[in-house]
């Protein structure tokens, strides 16, 4: 049988031809999975709320000021992350490093604020189903913010050391995408934890 050459790929880019490298798809898969987890948490919250006589059981709605500030901070950190990504697209290593570092710092502030907030919760997860689901969602998201902070800290270190270039930026792409996901995931949780009780009780 004759073997003929049909395609020669020797000239093709060994870097990610269209930013849609396998790893980009991989992180999309992870985000899809985690989105389903977020959705399932939301459904569980609503299911428990729907069958409860009063929600929350104490009738007291949780304070809304600090969570709103956190939401703002998270969205802001997404924006700085976006700027960082744009920077490396232009090949600007400095913008990347500064942007990622800023985002990490912003998210660290969020973590501190969230820690204070969690410590101030008036109920424990042991008290009732409401307490359990609120704590579970809070800790779930807290852990995610922690993981993007430590993960992006590593990216920031590499960025300062000049590892990333315009071509070699899949690590940044993956990191920013996951960062957006974690920040956006806070929106449904925010609405559920802080607005649903208000609408439900009110």
């Amino acid at each position, binding site marked *: 049988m004759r073997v003929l050459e049909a395609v020669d*790929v020797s000239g093709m880019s060994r870097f990610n031809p269209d930013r849609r490298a396998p790893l980009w798809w991989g992180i999309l898969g992870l985000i899809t999975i985690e989105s389903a987890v977020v959705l399932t948490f939301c459904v569980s919250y609503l299911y428990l709320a729907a069958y409860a006589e009063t929600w929350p059981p104490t009738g007291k709605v949780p304070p809304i000021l600090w969570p709103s500030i956190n939401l703002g901070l998270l969205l802001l950190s997404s924006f700085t992350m976006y700027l960082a990504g744009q920077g490396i697209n232009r090949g600007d290593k400095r913008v990347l490093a500064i942007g990622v570092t800023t985002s990490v710092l912003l998210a660290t502030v969020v973590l501190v604020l969230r820690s204070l907030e969690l410590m101030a919760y008036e109920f424990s997860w042991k008290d009732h189903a409401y307490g359990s689901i609120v704590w579970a969602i809070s800790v779930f998201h807290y852990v995610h913010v922690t993981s993007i902070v430590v993960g992006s800290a590593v990216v920031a270190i590499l960025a300062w050391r000049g590892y990333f270039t315009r071509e070699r930026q899949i690590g940044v792409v993956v990191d920013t995408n996951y960062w957006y996901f974690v920040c956006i995931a806070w929106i449904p949780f925010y609405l559920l934890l802080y607005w649903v009780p208000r609408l439900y009780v009110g």
Partner: protein
Amino acid sequence: MTLHKAAEQRDIIDSPEETAHLARTWYSPRGFPGWFTQVNQRMIGKRFIITAFIFFLLAGILGLLMRLQLAAPEQQLLGPELYNQFFTMHGTVMMFFFAIPVMEGVAIYIVPLMVGTRDMAFPRLNAFGYYVYLIGGIVLFGSLLLGMAPNAGWFNYVPLAGKLYSPGYGVDVWTTMITFIEVSALTAAVELIVTILRMRAPGMSLNRMPLFVWAALVMSFMIVFAMPAVIVSSTLLILDRLVDTQFFIVESGGEPLLWQHLFWYFGHPEVYIILVPALGMISTIIITFTGRPIFGYTALVLSVVAIGFVSFGLWVHHMFTTGLPQLGMSFFTAASAMIAIPSGVQIFCWIASLWGAKIRFHTPMLWVLGFFAIFVIGGLTGVMVASIPFDTQVHDTFFVVAHFHYVLIGGAVFPLIGAVYYWWPKIIGRMMNETAGKWSFWLAFIGFNITFFPMHQLGLEGMPRRIYTYADEMGWGDLNMLATIGALVLAVGFGITLVNAIWSVSRGRPAGTNPWNAPTLEWATESPPASYNFRHIPVVESRWPLWDWQRQDERRVVTGLRNDRREVVLTSVLDASPVGVQVLPGPSIWPFASAVAASTGFIGIIFHPIFFVIGFFLVFFSLVAWFWPRRPWRND
């Protein structure tokens, strides 16, 4: 679309030195250290398959022991404690540690070969998934040996599975091991999706993709969307058990039904996750043994996709007796009955393809024909239990046991064994014995029906599931004895295949490249394939590339991949035109280290929540080590 980018077609003659170099580049380390560093997709796939079959054997033995206990009334072989552990383990292992991993394993082995590439998209993640699976399985069986196996059923309903009614570590082991299998299944699913979408051979547009690859793709998407529900539910349960949350505690506003919704939202698609790849195997085998293109390629693809979608809308039919509102449940009756249509389309497309064809009745084909007889019965009883009033009579009886064994063994295990006979020559390089294969099939087929058909009647005569004994007066003794005899015959049937497989590894007839004259790409390379799978990535021009090549006596390939590192071609999602080259990583210890780190955390939290934090940081550090770029940073 033109693939003829090279100015003029030239013949390719490979020098042995280049081939040897390529083989070295893709070489998997051997020996004991190699066990923990291999990442090649065929190694991982083979391990998945072998491990899963070992678990199948063990869980099958548990099933046999349960059948012996039930063979006659008031037997003393197993007490209630042991029996409850056994059926929990049997269900859990068969569903989570055999069915899903073995289907994934076959997909991991076969899909890259079928789409004509050299490895999967994330080889190290692949290895990680396997180690997690292996550790999970070992711990689960370890718990059985230590007498602290889970005993609340594979469905693990609360409040029975709660701390109050299931003290001890059994249910903790269950929830934790489920997490292991979730992680493993999800990594494999993402892996398969990306490999199938981005790494197909140039020219293999979506409408030329082999049907098994379609099935693997649908299966992977189903895993991605179904597994998160059980991730959340098992997390909620383990929180209830370990840190006293109140998700399922009625007195504190918890909802036991939430568990059932979440579990079956996963649990029903789970059945189809197992079934869908089996459908792909059947199509593949039918094409090969009829020796002609299958009828209704598009219809088959669409019905597999439809089955995938509809399966997410059926979960409530596991909950018809829980007292939910009748009207709401009726929707699920309709949806459950409607799944008969895509199934019907599949079956009659196959019958149309078989019609009048010159069929070669080799062992794989026999197992597929056995599938027809069994699966039709299982499907019909499935439609029956979709009826709410009828289900209230047979739910949780042996009728249902019969039904789902017909669906799962008939629908998944028979095609799977057929697929093992079919792909064995490719994987091992030697044929299995045909005579033994046929004996195995007939014994398993007859044994299967003797085992499970009487159970329909037992269920209608009022025998509930999950009982360790029954009184003589109930009159269930004869049929149970019959079923037990059948189970022994079935075991002998499967046992012959086991012996046949082991025998063939050293004694089987050498297979050659394409012993069945099959049309798909995995048969284009030697058996077993070399470390690089394909000397040259093939270029595909139809659904049946090998038959094309035979007819034309020539074939086209990709050139330009380097020999000194692991390079594969990336192609576009829809029409698979080449868009770039990806460099894949080689062997590494870090996937294993990460799996051990993750296991430390998961297993540790059974004993103390602090292990969550420890596990988190251990995994973090091992992941950093895994991904940390090695100096010198390459500039190309």
